[in-house]
Every structure is written in structure tokens, then in C-alpha cells.
């Protein structure tokens, strides 16, 4: 009698490698509503990216005419009629915070829409795959050619594909640099060899990264490099719409007469015919029927693929769909599911978003285009004059945040008979001094205030410096101190 000895599985399992070869993904072309929305988003994103540096915006003769310009060298950011200075950097911080919260909100509502539609990695990879399909054909043709020997046909197609990729990558890298410098000038200088070294370096660097990341790395970036997929689960819950396979009506999957015959009335075959169409179109090469996975970027191309098959088999479409875990549980038991869009998580994200947006908008509206800072001399606090007058020295910082040169008017309020001396402009004492301000600049000047104070309580008197832009009328005041000898020793 043979007694079978069950082998202890753990002992015989072959030692597995900790490193794996990359499994090449050959995504198949697909058409449908989801794909069409994805094309639309792609055209919009790329259009904005490539076109924006070329938009012009008239700011007068003293400022650059590029609508969106990040002028790092001169420390000025221009966005249409908004101009940001280094001290306005909090706007950028605020916008980054708002972007993050928007991302949280969208993810908690509809899953990884950012990853699947508007992430640059996805957009450029999609574009590169389109080029690949145009030159090398669809999935099956590409697999066949890649496995086959090197022929002339294979060689020219590969060369053409990489040339096209490099061209797109080059244009992408160049467009990036155009955001930091005047676009038409940069293009001209680039081809005449007069662009800056950093201009060439960054163009080539970004050409290389675009070519590598969108052409070669593709889904490996999302799976192995990007941190976002790692913490996305913190934003997902049972009411989040994610790409879902309706396993309750899809299983047991299968096709063919034999399986259909084996199925009984009590246990009929599910709607899924196990054609693997969803797997073949997936840009990250996963099987959505295994459930929500780290690799899934939520693009929903599998939905289009499955709907084609469902139409052919006559089953209800949307076997793969966007749905929530809660609604799937309800549907499974035949209950009419509710949407559940409004829940504490989304409401909190919305509130943060609303408060942040209002704060930033208010900040932008109330932003002043004129600035004045005052520093009283540390020592001496004052100088006594021959006629008994007192003179105090100040260092004033004037800020003109408008793109036009203008005359600023400096005066003093609250110090009777005070005279201003701006020796760098005019040696004459004046009651109102005129400071010519260049466009978009900061100017530091030493200002002497001379007065004959009748009395100085405890040796000081407070007053206001008033600065006014003669062209725009913008005004600002700075509360300052005038110091002198204490009254009793005068």
C-alpha cells in the first residue's frame, strides 16, 4: 500500500531571486468614451505646456513681454498681470498647498484621476505610445517584431521611433527652459549658438529625462519611483470611486462550449468571458480583476476595452466601471446604492480648499505695489546742529512693484517744519522729496530728517514717513521715531 507523504512545502520551494527582470508591457490600442476623454486631456495639457511660453503680455517698455515668465536671474515671477517678488513667495507655497489639498479631494472622491489623466509622466508616456503605435503597429505586431530577428523592417522602424521620441523630448526640454527666459529670444539664441550654457544644459538634461522616462521607463516610474502610489491608500475609503471589476456578476469567468455546458442553472457562468482584453490595454500591464492595486493609475482604459466585449457577448456593459466598495456591496445584494460623495473626509478637504483659496485671493487683491521700510541709524541717534536744530539719519528702502518707472513722493507728517535731505538725489533740504523709481525695482537711500523740535518728550517724537507713487496714486506710510536731546539739557 502506497502511503503518500505530503512533502513539507516550505522545504522544497526553490530559492526565489530578490531581483526580477522587467516584464515588458505592450499596451493595445483601444477606443471608447474613456479613451476619448483621455485624448482630450492630453491635447489640453500638452497644448498648454508648449504654447504658454509663447503668449505675449504688454507690460510697457520697462518689463518683459512674456505672459508667464519665471525670471530667476532678476528674482521676478510674471503671471499675466500678476508680478511676484521674492517676498511674495508665500503665494507659491499657498498654491502648492492648495494643489496638494485638491489632489487629496479628487483622490478621495474619484481615485487616482491625477495619475491616470494629467500627470506629466502619464501624458508624455501616452504620447510616446501613440508614436510607437503609428510606427511599429499595435500590440501583436510589436510583440511579433520584437521577438523576431533583426530585419531591415524592424531596424528602420526602431530608428524612426527613437528619432521621433528624441524630437518630442527635445521640444519638451526646450519648452521648459522657455518658461525661465524670453521664448523667441531663446529659440533664436539657441540655434545661433548664443544661448547661455545653462540654457543648453537644461534643454539637453530635460530632453534626456523626457526620453528616458516617457520612452523607456514608463510604468516603472509609477510603480517603483513615484511616492504618490505609496500613500494614495490614505485618501481612499469605501466611498471612493475607483476602477472596479464587478466580480459579483463577472465570476465565475470563462468562455467556450465546454465551460458553458458545465455551468448549471444554480451556478451559471458570469459575464466575464476571460478574454484578457482589459489586461492587454492596460498601460501598466496589470489585471484589474485582481482588485485595486498599487500599479493601477486609474486611467480606465480597461473599461473601454471591456465594454466592446460586453457589446459583442450581449451582456450588460460596464462590467469594469468606476464605482465604490460600498456601492458594489449594495449592488451585490440588490439594494439601490447611494452616491456618498459628501462625507467628513471630502467636506474637510473642501473646507481647507475654500479657506485656502479665499486667503490667497484676498492676499492677491490686497497686495500693495508700493513699499517702504525705514531703519533709524543705530549710532549716533541724532546730530546736533549749529543753530540748535536736530538731524536724524535713516536708511529707507523704496519698493516699486509696478512694471513702470515712476516718481515717488516722500514727505513727513507729524513733525512740524521738518526738512528732508536725500543727498544722493539733491543736497537741498526739502519738505517733499521726489525719488525717481525705476520699474520693478527696490532702491535704498539714506535720508536725513532735519527739524527744530520745540520740545522732545523723553528725547523723542513719533511721526510718519508718507510715500506716494505720483503715477498710480498708491500710498504707504511708515511709523518712525525722531530722536534728539532730552528737553532739560537743551
Amino acid at each position, binding site marked *: 500500500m502506497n502511503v503518500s507523504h505530503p512533502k513539507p512545502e*516550505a522545504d522544497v520551494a526553490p530559492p526565489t*531571486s530578490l531581483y*526580477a527582470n522587467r516584464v515588458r508591457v505592450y499596451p493595445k490600442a483601444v477606443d471608447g468614451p474613456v479613451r476619448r476623454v483621455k485624448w482630450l486631456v492630453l491635447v489640453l495639457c500638452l497644448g498648454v505646456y508648449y504654447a504658454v511660453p509663447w503668449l505675449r503680455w504688454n507690460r510697457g517698455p520697462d518689463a518683459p513681454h512674456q505672459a508667464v515668465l519665471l525670471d530667476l536671474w532678476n528674482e521676478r515671477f510674471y503671471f499675466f498681470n500678476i508680478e511676484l517678488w521674492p517676498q511674495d513667495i508665500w503665494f507659491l507655497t499657498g498654491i502648492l498647498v492648495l494643489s496638494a489639498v485638491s489632489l487629496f479631494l479628487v483622490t478621495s472622491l474619484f481615485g487616482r484621476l491625477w495619475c491616470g489623466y494629467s500627470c506629466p509622466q502619464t501624458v508624455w508616456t501616452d504620447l510616446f505610445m501613440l508614436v510607437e503605435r503609428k510606427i511599429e503597429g499595435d500590440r501583436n505586431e510589436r510583440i511579433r517584431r520584437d521577438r523576431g530577428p533583426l530585419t531591415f523592417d524592424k531596424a528602420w522602424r526602431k530608428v524612426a521611433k527613437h528619432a521621433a521620441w528624441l524630437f518630442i523630448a527635445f521640444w519638451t526640454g526646450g519648452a521648459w527652459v522657455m518658461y525661465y527666459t524670453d521664448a523667441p529670444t531663446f529659440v533664436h539664441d539657441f540655434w545661433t549658438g548664443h544661448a547661455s550654457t545653462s540654457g543648453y544644459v537644461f534643454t539637453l538634461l530635460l530632453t534626456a529625462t523626457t526620453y528616458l522616462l516617457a520612452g523607456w521607463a514608463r510604468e516603472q516610474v509609477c510603480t517603483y519611483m513615484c511616492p504618490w502610489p505609496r500613500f494614495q491608500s490614505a485618501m481612499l475609503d469605501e466611498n471612493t470611486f475607483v476602477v472596479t471589476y464587478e466580480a459579483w456578476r463577472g465570476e465565475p469567468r470563462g468562455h467556450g462550449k465546454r465551460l458553458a455546458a458545465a455551468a448549471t442553472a444554480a451556478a451559471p457562468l458570469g459575464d466575464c468571458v476571460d478574454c484578457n482584453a482589459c489586461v492587454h490595454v492596460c498601460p501598466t500591464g496589470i489585471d484589474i480583476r485582481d482588485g485595486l492595486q498599487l500599479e493601477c493609475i486609474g486611467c480606465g482604459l480597461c473599461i473601454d476595452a471591456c465594454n466592446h466585449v460586453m457589446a459583442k457577448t450581449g451582456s450588460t456593459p460596464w462590467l469594469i466601471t468606476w464605482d465604490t466598495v460600498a456601492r458594489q456591496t449594495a449592488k451585490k445584494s440588490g439594494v439601490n446604492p447611494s452616491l456618498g460623495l459628501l462625507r467628513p473626509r471630502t467636506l474637510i478637504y473642501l473646507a481647507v480648499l475654500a479657506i485656502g483659496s479665499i486667503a490667497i485671493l484676498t492676499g492677491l487683491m490686497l497686495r500693495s505695489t508700493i513699499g517702504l521700510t525705514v531703519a533709524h541709524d543705530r549710532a549716533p541717534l541724532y546730530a546736533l546742529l549749529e543753530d540748535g536744530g536736530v538731524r536724524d539719519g535713516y536708511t529707507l528702502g523704496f519698493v516699486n512693484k509696478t512694471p513702470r518707472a515712476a516718481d515717488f513722493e516722500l514727505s513727513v507728517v507729524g513733525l512740524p517744519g521738518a526738512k528732508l535731505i536725500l543727498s544722493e538725489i539733491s543736497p537741498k533740504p526739502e519738505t517733499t522729496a521726489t525719488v525717481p523709481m525705476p520699474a520693478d525695482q527696490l532702491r535704498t537711500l539714506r535720508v536725513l530728517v532735519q527739524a527744530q523740535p520745540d520740545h522732545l518728550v523723553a528725547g523723542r517724537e513719533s511721526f510718519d514717513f508718507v510715500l506716494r507713487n505720483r503715477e498710480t496714486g498708491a500710498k504707504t506710510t511708515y511709523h518712525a521715531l525722531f530722536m534728539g536731546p532730552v528737553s532739560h539739557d537743551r
Partner: protein
Amino acid sequence: MPTKIEKDVISGRDTTGHEWDGIRELNTPLPKWWVYVYLATIVWALGMFVLYPAIPLGTRATTGLLGFSSRAQAMAGFQEMNALHATQMQEIGRVSFADIEKNHDLMEVALTAGRITFANNCQPCHGPNGEGRIGYPALDTDVWRWGGSLDAIQQTITHGIRSADPDARNSQMPNFGGDKLLTPAQIEDVADYVMTLYGKAKPGVDTSAGEKLFGDNCAPCHGAKAEGNRDVGAPPLASRVHLYGDSRAAVVAQITHPRMGVMPNWNHRLSPATIKAVALYVHSLGGGE
């Protein structure tokens, strides 16, 4: 060394075979290209090791094939700056004050050089920002004994006051008390009068005697209205600013045994260009004429 590779029941995947206090980990193999990138960075690091200073050898380090040194880089920067500075200072020495003031860059260099030189040489007596003190004149006010124009300031710095320089500014106040030119009572009278000139006199004091004595003895240098005379370095007395104090005792002391300060001539210590820079700086303190 992995000891016990098992198949996980739920996922159907192998574990790594490592175990930490009962915690096992699923084997999620790393893509090989990732490992190759890691190896490539090691190769890159080896290249940096060979090209740049890397291995410490006690007080020194290997120099690397490129011979790079951050100290040499910094020194080259200093030399470049010094060369630029030298030409700019040469320019300051060559051109007139008016031309320097017209050239923004040159003016900036001059004021910086002047400020640093002032801090090293002038500050001990005149104060950090030229505010002066008893016996050492303030340079930021409008009272000048020898003149507050750029040329006058340059002259004073170059040759000094009562210094050893043959071109020094020189003057002497008579020793009215010590040489018995005036009696102590007369000196008190003069002091009473002088104090009326700057509004510190006690009311009800008769100053007619003092006024007469002032006209005879002091006015020749200090002027009939006590407005001072820069040709002889006689300070204005009808002024709120006084070199040796404005109290009655201070005035009496000054008339009895006059103190007369000495300022060194700087032409043997500072170059003409540096003196010009200091003159420009002092002129900018607020009192320049």
C-alpha cells in the same frame, strides 16, 4: 541567508525567507535595472574619487587628477577681486571728486573703502559713525572748524591738524589764564557773555563787561558775532555744538588753559586714493558741504 521561504496563503506569493520576531515579508522583487542604476552610481563615485580630493591622509588628502582645491578656487576669486579693486582705487585716485560722484559704481567702491578705512583708523577718536565726543569733533554735523567741503576734508586728513607735517593746519589759542592775559574775574565775565551766544546764560546776569572783553580779545579770531573763522580754525561760539562742552565750567577752563587737539597727518599711512575715499565717506555722514 534566507532560511525558510514559504508561500503566502492569501497572495500566493513567496516570502523573502527572512523572519523578524515572527514577522515575515513577501518577496517583491526589485527590478534589475534599478540595481544597475545603483551600480552605475558606485562607478560614478569611483570616478569622483580619482578626479577629486577624496581620501584623507592625516592632515592632507589625495589631490585627485584634476588638482581641484576649494581653497585655490577661493584664492583665485580673491585675486580677481583684488585686481578689480586695485584698478578701481587707481581710478579714484586719478579722477576728481565730481567725476567720482557721477560714477555710481566708483562712488560705491569709494564709500565702502572709506567706511572700512574710517573704522580702522578714525573711529577710536571720532566714534563709529563720526559722532565725535568731548575734544574730538563730530563729523556728522554742520559745524566745521577747518571746512566741510570735500577738498577741505581731504586736506585735513592728508596733512592733519597741529601735526608734524609742514603743511598741517595750524593755529593757537592764547593761554589767557596761564599767561595772565586776563584775570580770573575777567575770564568769568567772558564766559558769562559767551553763554548768551547759545542761549544757556542765566537770566539777570550783566554781560556788558564780558561783551567788551570778548570784542577786544576773542573777536579777532572768533569773529565779532562769534561766527568763527575757518582760516585760523577758530570755531563758531554762537553755536549749539561745542568741542569741549558748553557748561560754564567748561568755557572758563577753555579760556584759562585752552586745550588744542592734534590730528595726525595720514599721508604717511594712507595712499592718496584711500584718503579721497575717506573724505567722500566723511562727507556723506550728513555734514558735508
